[in-house]
């Protein structure tokens, strides 16, 4: 679709969304009135981006806290909901609670289906979803998307990694869905069982989601499975994904622009940045009728590039490298900008490293990057610490303090790996 037609369609949907929110949600009505931009006062997409206030996560929490679980935020009666999800709240913040109507959930599955189809998933494929199927929305929508496409889905909510490897082999599974971290863990488990998944397995597509996925991690997953690893990302506040990597592998992910208006803003000035410049992703969903989000400050760091950088023919722009990190994880260390994903990029080039942890600490009054590396059993090498430190210095211009810990020491993750802690922000113990 030509981009001018795409913009017209976005504006049409946005107008309907705003009218619906104004009529149905006390929160949105108050917000639009106080900002002087009720639906009939907005003239265009550009006008919307210039004047509509940004929405922060804490504001959703506050609106829901008025009358839990959903408060004054929803735009339809929550009795119309067919499912409930919420964020984990593990960061200490109040969890965000959301629901979906039947219409919303069909749309959420459609977004996942859009991404899965673009990765090459087709009717008749057998797909295994390695995910906990709980309150967290995670891969729930993909389960329904696979069904919609016509795949046979193998849900493995309560299974351990050994059982999942067994299921992959027994069922000649073609499509695997999980986090990038977990894909590597499955491959590791298979190796421990004496199985080379690239040779003995049938997986041809790995749908990776739930974490930033540096290019080196993609390459490592693809080598381990002998498969294409496509990136996606979604969020509970949207119910589903907003971007996906197509089989042409353009070095990034297409934004589903038919159903989202996405802006990229400079974190300091809140002004839009141009193509090729990194900023924070601001999301407007054009899909849901129950829980609506307009100009949501996601905290995701992205770099937008034009659709023409991909050969697939879609006219949807791309986020180069997908989600590159979180704005709140970005730090300046001794004058050098740092993101945890930069270390992951280095780690994935060290085949002997199975797991890692990063902390930012004060040492002799200086911010210091401290990295723990855990090699695989039998892969310990005396010079790993020095080689890794030198490589970080070469690529990032930072000199970290590196230590090597025994195999099996560091925590493992199935969803949302937590490998970075900033201890400089914590009060010093008495």
């Amino acid at each position, binding site marked *: *679709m030509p981009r001018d037609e795409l913009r017209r*369609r976005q504006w*049409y*949907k946005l107008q*309907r*969304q705003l009218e*619906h929110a104004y*009529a*149905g949600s006390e929160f949105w009505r108050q917000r639009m009135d106080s900002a002087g931009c009720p639906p009939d006062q907005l003239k265009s997409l550009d006008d919307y981006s210039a004047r509509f206030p940004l929405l922060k996560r804490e504001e959703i929490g506050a609106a829901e806290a008025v009358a839990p679980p959903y408060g004054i935020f929803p*735009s*339809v*009666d929550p009795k*119309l909901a067919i499912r409930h999800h919420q964020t984990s709240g593990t960061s200490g913040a109040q969890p965000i609670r959301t629901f979906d*109507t*039947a*219409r919303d*959930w*069909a*749309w959420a*599955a*459609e977004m996942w289906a859009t991404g899965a189809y673009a990765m*090459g998933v087709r009717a008749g494929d057998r797909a295994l979803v390695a995910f906990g199927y709980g309150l967290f929305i995670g891969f729930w929508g993909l389960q329904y998307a696979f069904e*919609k496409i016509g795949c046979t889905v193998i849900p493995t909510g309560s299974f351990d990694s050994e059982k999942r490897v067994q299921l992959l082999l027994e069922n000649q599974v073609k499509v695997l869905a999980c986090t990038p971290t977990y894909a590597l863990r499955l491959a590791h488990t298979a190796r421990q069982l004496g199985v080379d998944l690239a040779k003995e397995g049938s997986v041809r597509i790995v749908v990776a989601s739930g974490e930033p996925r540096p290019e080196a991690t993609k390459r490592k997953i693809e080598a381990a499975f002998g498969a294409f690893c496509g990136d996606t990302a979604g969020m509970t506040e949207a119910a589903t994904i907003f971007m996906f990597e197509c*089989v*042409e592998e353009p070095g990034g992910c297409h934004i589903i622009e*038919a159903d989202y208006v996405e802006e990229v803003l400079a974190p300091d000035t809140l002004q839009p940045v141009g193509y090729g410049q990194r900023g924070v992703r601001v999301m407007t969903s054009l899909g849901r*009728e*129950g829980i609506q989000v307009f100009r949501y400050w996601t905290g995701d760091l992205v770099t937008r590039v034009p659709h023409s950088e991909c050969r*697939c*023919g879609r006219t949807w722009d791309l986020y180069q490298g997908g989600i590159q990190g979180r704005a709140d994880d970005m730090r300046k260390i001794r004058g050098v900008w740092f993101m945890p994903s930069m270390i992951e990029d280095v780690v994935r080039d060290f085949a002997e490293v199975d797991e890692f942890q990063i902390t930012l600490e004060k040492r002799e009054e200086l911010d210091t990057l401290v990295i723990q590396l855990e090699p695989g059993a039998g892969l310990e090498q005396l010079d790993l610490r020095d080689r890794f430190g030198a490589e970080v210095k070469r690529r990032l211009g930072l000199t970290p303090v590196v230590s090597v810990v025994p195999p099996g020491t560091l925590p493992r993750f199935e969803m949302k790996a937590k490998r970075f802690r900033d201890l400089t922000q914590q009060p010093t113990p008495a």
Partner: protein
Amino acid sequence: MSYEIQRLSEAEQQQLQRVYDDLKQLAQSSVPGVASAARAALAQVATALSGEGLAYELYSKDWK
């Protein structure tokens, strides 16, 4: 991989719209089994209509 675009014919577009309109009426049926089936099916058809750029509606607010 081929990227040939598949498009609905005009007749198919009309069929899709008719199915949507019929399901929307059936979704208000007093027969519970019919209403629930129609609502579930309507949700799927609505995504197809929206995906093809034929119609876009936030309809559930009208339901009891």
